[in-house]
């Protein structure tokens, strides 16, 4: 069995409630942390090698150490629970089933960073989770783990839950801060980074739900022990939300030594593909990361077994690799159409573009229009080249990473599945009733034993 640091207690009856969570060893990390120097906690997180679990994978301890500490200015910790990346639903699971784990991580992190007022910014659609979190916060407060002078340490902390209102862009940290200030979610130009000028122009750290929950086991076991789990710079465990054409969609906690093949086909995880269908492609880290055809997914271009971690999934760069991203793992079977799938993602990014930067605002709209043409059998070969050209002009030319996130899925689809796009153009009628299937592959496709 794989090590479970986050979800080990997810199925304990009543774990949503303080007494049960406490009986199971909960809040020990808070007791430990309050006896430490805040800087020593930051040091433990650095030693753990924890990397941001929201998608970017930036070292969390380093992010914390950038936080400015000017005299007399409040500092803020904001928990990013705006989980909106298609394919990603792990934070939802964590908050729904283990709310106290997040609250515990938030208290420890707030103490480490000196935040007396901490906000959880949750996507507006997760409305029912707000009540679950507020209940957990109230229970923690009743038991002296929140509020004034926590456990007699002299540290005061309040946690508030703020609902968004439907905007993917608010998962970007500066857009999130704008939204928390009661404005449109338009990302800010960086620098200044939030660590210097964030919420209400005060130094701010924004971390993902899973990142902040991981602080609990890090404190309990020590950063060095945590770093022993996993491989290389992929330390600890990672939550993966698996969906698409698999037998067992859901949220899994994995050690990052697991192979992609085992993750898809083992009964412990996705349980293979329904109806004996074959694997066509996969988007392994949320909709923004490059889609990979089966042959490049299971093995790297060098022929090595591909593993579920930061380094292995990005092996080969964008030419032959992808990214671990947010851990939103989307599987496509042989009956799926890559053009159609790319179209839905292009539409998503067009809908979610905040409109500040022309390349993204205009480019995402054009990509959707052209993909719609191709999908409906009305495209030309030159449209595929135009599509390629547009995505290149978006990437790197916008204030925030949404532009890149919109460009990459289109680029990867053309890079690896250009023949499928051409088939749509050359078979305008047939493509309305049939799928291209697996005709791409010169190599034999993986068939589960």
């Amino acid at each position, binding site marked *: 069995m794989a090590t479970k640091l986050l979800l080990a207690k997810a199925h304990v009856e009543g774990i949503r409630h303080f007494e049960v969570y406490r009986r199971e060893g909960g809040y020990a990390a808070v007791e430990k942390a309050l006896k430490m120097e805040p800087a020593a906690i930051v040091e433990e997180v650095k030693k753990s090698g924890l990397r941001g679990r929201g998608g970017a994978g930036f070292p969390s301890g380093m992010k914390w150490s950038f936080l400015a500490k000017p005299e007399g200015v409040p500092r803020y910790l904001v928990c990013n629970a705006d989980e909106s990346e298609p*394919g*990603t*639903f792990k934070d939802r699971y964590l908050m729904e089933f283990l709310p106290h784990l997040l609250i515990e991580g938030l208290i420890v992190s707030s103490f480490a960073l000196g935040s007396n007022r901490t906000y959880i910014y949750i996507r507006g659609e997760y409305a029912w989770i707000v009540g679950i979190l507020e209940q957990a916060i109230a229970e923690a407060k009743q038991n002296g783990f929140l509020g004034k002078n926590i456990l007699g340490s002299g540290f005061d902390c309040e946690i508030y839950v703020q609902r968004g209102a439907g905007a993917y862009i608010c998962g970007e940290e500066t857009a999130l801060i704008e939204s*928390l200030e009661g404005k449109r*979610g338009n990302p800010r130009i960086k620098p200044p980074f939030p660590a210097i000028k964030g919420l209400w122009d005060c130094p701010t750290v924004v971390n993902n739900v899973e990142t902040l929950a991981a602080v609990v086991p890090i404190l309990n076991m020590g950063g060095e022990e945590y770093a022993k789990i996993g491989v290389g710079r992929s330390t600890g465990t990672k939550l993966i939300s698996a*969906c698409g054409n698999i037998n067992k969609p859901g949220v899994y906690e994995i050690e990052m030594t697991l192979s992609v093949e085992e993750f898809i086909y083992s009964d412990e995880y996705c349980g293979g593909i329904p109806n004996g269908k074959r694997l066509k492609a996969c988007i392994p880290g949320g*909709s923004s990361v490059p889609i990979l055809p089966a042959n490049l997914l299971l093995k790297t271009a060098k022929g090595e077994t591909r593993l579920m971690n930061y380094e292995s999934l990005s092996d080969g760069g964008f030419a032959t690799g992808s990214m671990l991203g947010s851990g*939103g793992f989307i599987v496509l079977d042989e009956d799926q159409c890559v053009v159609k799938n790319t179209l839905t993602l292009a539409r*998503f990014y067009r809908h979610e573009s905040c409109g500040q930067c022309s390349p993204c605002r205009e480019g995402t709209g054009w990509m959707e229009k052209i993909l719609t043409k191709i999908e409906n059998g009305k495209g030309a070969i030159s449209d595929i080249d135009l599509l390629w050209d547009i995505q290149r002009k978006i990437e790197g030319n916008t204030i925030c990473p949404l532009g890149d996130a919109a460009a990459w899925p289109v680029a990867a689809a053309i890079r690896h599945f250009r023949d499928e796009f051409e088939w749509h153009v050359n078979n305008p009628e047939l493509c309305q009733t049939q799928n291209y299937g697996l005709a791409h592959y010169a190599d034999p496709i993986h068939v589960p034993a």
Partner: protein
Amino acid sequence: MVKFSEDKLKEVQSMIDRYPEGKQKSALIPLLHLAQEDFGGWLSAETMDYVGSLLGIEPIEVYEVATFYSMYNLKPVGKHVFEVCHTGPCMLKGSDDIIAYIKTKLDIKVGETTADGLFTLKTVECLGACGYAPMMQMGIDYREHLTEAKVDEIIAACRNKQ
């Protein structure tokens, strides 16, 4: 006239109290949710102006926010709003068929409301339920693993509430 009850006004104050003094504008997004729930499921100009007055901000500051976020309805909607996800992961699991089925069943197009004012059909982008696809949001609830039979049940249950 648009006005919150005394109880709701207390809730408004507790929302404002979550932020440091002078930062009450931060309560705008939660307040618009509250207003939408309380005043007929959508935000009229009158409602938005009222919310602005509670926070001491200009009407334009409310409008620019209300028009940015997709959860706010800027025109009247039916009593039950079906917001069906059609992004990649839901599409792979047949959301197009579910949308087509609801359209036929209710005899409306996406974005329309039935003549009796009971149902509005909308399509939405990823709601973070990809593992439980296809799905839709109804009010604050998610309805997941949708099938035609399940859609029938949901529609019947809504009608029975009348």
